[in-house]
């Protein structure tokens, strides 16, 4: 078990066990892994706990084999793309060799990871785009339609595996727009024909991928119908869908009325319910009143008189919330909150429900689609303190020991609507009201889709590097500055280390620099490389070396074409035709042999090695530590 296999292998098992989980990437890749595992007879019982664990009797070869198969398809794809673009067999062969002998690419596609699947779809999309470009002289013929729709399908695949797939979509989009622009400028075509072209592309490159992409989500939610580790990331309404969750098949009163016992959940925090307990705020932190923070417990929407007939709570009502266990009221006042000094402190105050004027809150419904009443699960409510005018919210900060390391609850004077200050009602008990089944309240598919995207984006944004940590920088990647350790630290461990083939990297680093000479075939690839590389400079999230590999594919293809052209130019300008041929062949062969030899040197990195570390002169890898930053 290596590195990120812990994640993706586990997620594959989740599909087989049908338990719900959350990940920052779209589901297609993990679904395919799960499918491969299912077909090959893996039963989903392996725990995938930490790198270095043994698989023992578990049948994992199906999943690894599937990824490796897709990874090995990259080589023929690259060959075909280069052949199609440059019409030069040596260039295509050179590219194929570069990719075959690239230790990094090999390492990455050997294990249960998303990257081989992603790279497969990217290359497949690129290949079908190139193929379809070469069918341009026979528009609306069967191959034309075939390649066009295949492009769309692969785009959906790429985006469905990781959001990085967006870049290949941009590339195809750019290609399509320039294509249409040429068609529009061709005055021999009627406007109607151009319109037909446009419609065909919208259909195949926008509608088709979107449908497929949505379909993967439909399958995702259909398959994962059991409660699992991902529940907490989603809203209460979403959780009601999952069997095993305590909200599933529950029946509670639909609308909130005075006298109801409720739990209130914050929309932002992973699992955050409004909570209070008998402990007081410590000396020196605002008023010494009862703590209120985030965790699960009960509150009581307080009635004027319990004997009154049922009266529903409506938008804009003034209410009092009484804590059921301690019968103190939710209270706020002009004291600063314990951690967020600009906010006001929230406490529990009063005895047996009698407090003071600071206990009154106005309840506001943010989404008033369901009318003015407050609907369980679906209504998003804000609680506004009447006296100070602040909004009940959570700062997301963890209280120190005296607050049992729960999350801080504050009353923010900033009235902006943020998820931090929006709550929804989850559990609800009111004997006077009829219970309804929660199925009625289940969100529709578009709502689920939207919510899961919001959660994913938030998850991605949350992956921020720390200040004092060494992080991989995009400029490290093309020069192979540092690899990525897949497993094993000590010399007795089985070690795998992700590092590109240094010789190919050396060749490839030239690629983008000099490729202006190749406008036709190289332009597409150069664009691809730039699109898959430069956006990373702008990304705030934490980055790893393996993020470079899609760009690396493009740069390898570019290198193939480039060296081919360069050698041709050199040879023909230097010598007579017979000698030129020799120079050309020798040049190509030396490149091939160079990469092959370097592959031979570095192959233990990819296939795994045991033994002393490279600093040790006894190690077979001694002397291969060309850069001090390599760490194998």
């Amino acid at each position, binding site marked *: 078990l290596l590195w990120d296999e812990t994640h993706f292998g586990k997620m594959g098992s989740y599909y087989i066990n049908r338990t719900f989980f959350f990940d920052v990437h779209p589901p297609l890749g993990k679904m395919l892994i799960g499918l491969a595992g299912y077909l090959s007879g893996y039963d989903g019982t392996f725990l995938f706990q930490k790198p270095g664990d043994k698989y023992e009797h578990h049948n994992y070869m199906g999943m690894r084999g599937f990824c490796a198969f897709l990874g090995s398809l990259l080589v023929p794809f690259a060959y075909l793309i280069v052949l199609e673009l440059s019409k030069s067999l040596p260039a295509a062969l050179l590219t194929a060799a570069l990719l075959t002998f690239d230790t990094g690419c090999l390492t990455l596609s050997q294990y249960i990871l998303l990257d081989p699947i992603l790279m497969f779809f990217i290359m497949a999309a690129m290949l079908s785009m190139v193929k379809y470009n070469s069918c341009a002289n026979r528009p609306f013929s069967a191959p034309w339609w075939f390649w066009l729709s295949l492009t769309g399908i692969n785009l959906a695949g790429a985006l469905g595996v990781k959001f990085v797939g967006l870049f290949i979509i941009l590339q195809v989009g750019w290609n399509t727009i320039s294509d249409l622009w040429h068609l529009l400028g061709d005055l021999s075509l009627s*406007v109607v024909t151009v319109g037909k072209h446009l419609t065909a592309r919208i259909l195949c490159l926008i509608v088709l991928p979107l449908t497929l992409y949505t379909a993967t989500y439909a399958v995702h939610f259909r398959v994962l119908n059991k409660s699992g580790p991902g529940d907490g990331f989603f809203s209460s309404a979403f959780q009601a869908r999952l069997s095993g969750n305590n909200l599933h098949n529950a029946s509670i009163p639909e609308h909130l009325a005075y006298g109801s016992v409720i739990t209130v959940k914050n929309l932002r925090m992973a699992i955050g319910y409004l909570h209070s307990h008998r402990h007081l705020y410590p000396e020196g932190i605002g008023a010494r009143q009862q703590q209120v923070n985030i965790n699960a417990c009960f509150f009581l929407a307080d009635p004027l008189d319990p004997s009154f007939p049922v009266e529903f709570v409506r938008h804009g009502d003034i209410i009092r919330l009484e804590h059921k266990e301690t019968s103190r009221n939710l209270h706020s006042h002009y004291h600063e909150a314990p951690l967020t000094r600009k906010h006001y402190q929230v406490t529990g105050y009063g005895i047996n429900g009698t407090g003071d004027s600071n206990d009154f809150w106005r309840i506001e419904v943010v989404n008033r689609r369901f009318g003015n009443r407050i609907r369980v699960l679906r209504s998003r409510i804000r609680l506004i303190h009447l006296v100070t005018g602040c909004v009940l919210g959570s700062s997301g900060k963890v209280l120190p020991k005296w607050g049992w390391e729960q999350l801080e609850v504050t009353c923010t004077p900033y009235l*902006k609507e943020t998820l931090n200050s929006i709550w929804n009602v989850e559990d609800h008990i009111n004997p006077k009201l009829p219970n309804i089944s929660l199925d009625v309240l289940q969100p529709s598919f578009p709502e689920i889709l939207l919510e899961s995207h919001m959660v994913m984006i938030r998850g991605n944004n949350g992956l921020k590097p720390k200040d004092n940590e*060494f992080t991989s920088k995009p400029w490290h990647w093309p020069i192979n500055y540092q690899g990525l350790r897949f497993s094993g630290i000590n010399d007795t461990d089985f070690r795998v280390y992700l590092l590109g083939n240094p010789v190919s990297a050396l060749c490839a680093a030239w690629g983008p620099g000099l490729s202006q000479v190749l406008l036709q075939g190289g332009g597409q690839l150069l664009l691809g490389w730039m699109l898959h590389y430069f956006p990373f400079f702008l990304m705030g999230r934490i980055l790893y070396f393996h993020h470079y590999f899609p760009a690396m594919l493009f740069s390898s293809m570019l290198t193939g074409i480039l060296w081919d052209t360069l050698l041709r130019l050199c040879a023909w300008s230097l010598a007579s035709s017979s000698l030129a041929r020799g120079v050309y062949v020798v040049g190509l062969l030396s490149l091939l042999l160079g990469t092959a030899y370097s592959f031979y040197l570095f192959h233990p990195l990819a296939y795994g090695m045991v033994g002393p570390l490279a600093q040790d002169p006894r190690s077979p890898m001694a002397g291969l530590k060309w850069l001090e930053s390599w*760490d194998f």
Partner: protein
Amino acid sequence: MLGFLKRPVVVTADINLNVVALTAVGLLSRLWQLAYPRAVVFDEVYYGQYISFYMKRIFFLDGSGPPFGHMLLALGGYLGGFDGNFLWNRIGAEYSSNVPVWSLRLLPALTGALSVPMAYQILLELGFSHCAAMGAALLMLIENALITQSRLMLLESVLIFFNLLAVLSYLKFSNSQKQRPFSLSWWFWLMLTGVACSCAVGVKYVGVFTYLLVLAVASVHAWHLIGDRTLSHVRVLCHLLARAAALLVVPALMYLLFFYVHLILVYRSGPHDQVMSSAFQASLEGGLARITQGQPLEVAYGSQVTLKNVFGKPVPCWLHSHQSTYPMIYENGRGSSHQQQVTCYPFKDVNNWWIVKDPGRHQLVVGSPPRPVRHGDVVQLVHGMTTRFLNTHDVAAPLSPHSQEVSCYVDYNISMPSQNLWRLDIVNRESDADVWKTILSEVRLVHVNTSVALKLSGAHLPDWGFRQLEVVGEKVSRGYHESMVWNVEEHRYGKSQEQKERELELHSPAQMDVSRNLSFMARFLELQWRMLTVKSDGSEHKYSSSPLDWVTLDTSIAYWLHPRTSAQIHLLGNVVIWASASLATVVYALLFLWYLLRRRRSIRDLPEDSWLRWVLAGALCAGGWAVNYLPFFMMEKTLFLYHYLPALTFQILLLPAVLQHISDHLCRSPPLRSLFSALVVAWYSCACHVFITLRPLTYGDKSLSPSELKALRWKDSWDILIRKY
């Protein structure tokens, strides 16, 4: 020669009365009652403290922008005779009599006023009619948000002024290109473009977007120039060189000049010193310079030093140790070596002193002559007060379990030998034989046995570590990071053999005399880098907003409220202008796309020259709007409505251009055209009406009743302050 004897000297002056009139009303609208309110309004509280720093010549660090803008504001204070003595701590605080409010606010107001005639000029230079040009200027004149922003001690109006100046002078330049290249006025406008661009960047970093836009337009024009076969090669080369000099070299030099002047002006040490490196601090008068003056330069065996972390995040701190040991068992159940704690401490303390020792010898004093420590030497570090050795070993650090614990070795007589040899790695060395220098050398201390480097992990230790910062040993192979780099700050040659004497020596301040001056470029680079990386606390603000709110004016900012009445200044835009400017941008985009597609099909709706004019107007105005607006979606800092004003100015310029285009090309029949003109007039009077209605909130001079204020709250999101009586 002596031509003036034959013919009289004649000066003909063209005075465009439109421009004069526009300047006059512009000045009137911006300068009227400028010194009112005599209180700190909104961000004046923020800019004001920097002006005070300038007046007192104290060094400061401000991450919000380059120093040119602050210096301009400070110039106003200088001319007004401000002595810098005012406590800028609260919005709404009354100014004391020594603050020259009028002259402090004069410069932003002047630039705001001059933007009005400049809008007129720009539209003329773009080739639109006088009528359209007047329209643009009049719209600028009655835009409430622009007035509010330019009447206070804030920088947006200065930025807008330089943005417009850059565009205007580029247009003037490219128009004179057609007639007389390389003439005096040609050079003048070209140079002015470069200067205005650098000034815009110098006021606020966002000015760089306008600069890039001008550069882009200039390079497209240059590309056409290269393709022009009527010009000789030499001439084309001259053209390109002139442009490169004026638009690339001049701005870069100007930018450096701003920093040069800034560093000359603020030469005293002040409250922000700590953030800078020791070398930088030593170049300021007072502060660290006073302590480090006269320290020996070369660190020798036996030297007593304090080691400061170069990265200095989350806080600048020094390597520190004290009597307390690591707790035997941490809260999470992991064990420690129970040896003496080594931390990083953000305050000066006698426990920050370390002695550099030669592993081969016993003495802790500097020999004579002193033997300097060089790159690659192996040393031991001895803690001055406890005489324990800096040590690390294969024990997990308290808060960063993936790194090694660093301790001062205590011999418990268990099987845990001391590992206290460190190899000195001078990071910024010039040769491998470099000597370890005080302040100047940045070093890594690499542990000999385990090849880990001493590193500041950035985490705060819990109570047992007195909330000091954790220091760990991190594998060198994990890569280079500034948090592993240290420099010697205080330094002296140790002379005392005995521990008691040495303690006395450590307590006494270090003194001697060597001056160390950093070059200007080094200081500039460091200051610029720190300014770009300084973390704003990212605190939420009551009036912060998101870029999406700006287009629809769904937000507002209360700037100031009269202490007794309900007179108030509120940043609110002229809704009519705001809405129609956005509409004009959409109309422009649609029309442009339509024409473009039709031209591709060889259908020419517009004559060639008006098409080119239409494209250029779009590139500069719509482009100016886009480059000044869209980047804000990527920014993570706290954003306010006033960030939109530069973009809005460009939109306002586009509006009359679109109107004139509609009237000229889309209204085919004369009656239709007159109808359109009538509509435009009606629309403009509508905008005037809005201006007059919102005027009390713009100038803040009139106290409105609560009901009047409520009536002005046209949108729920406008947070107009209503006093409760």
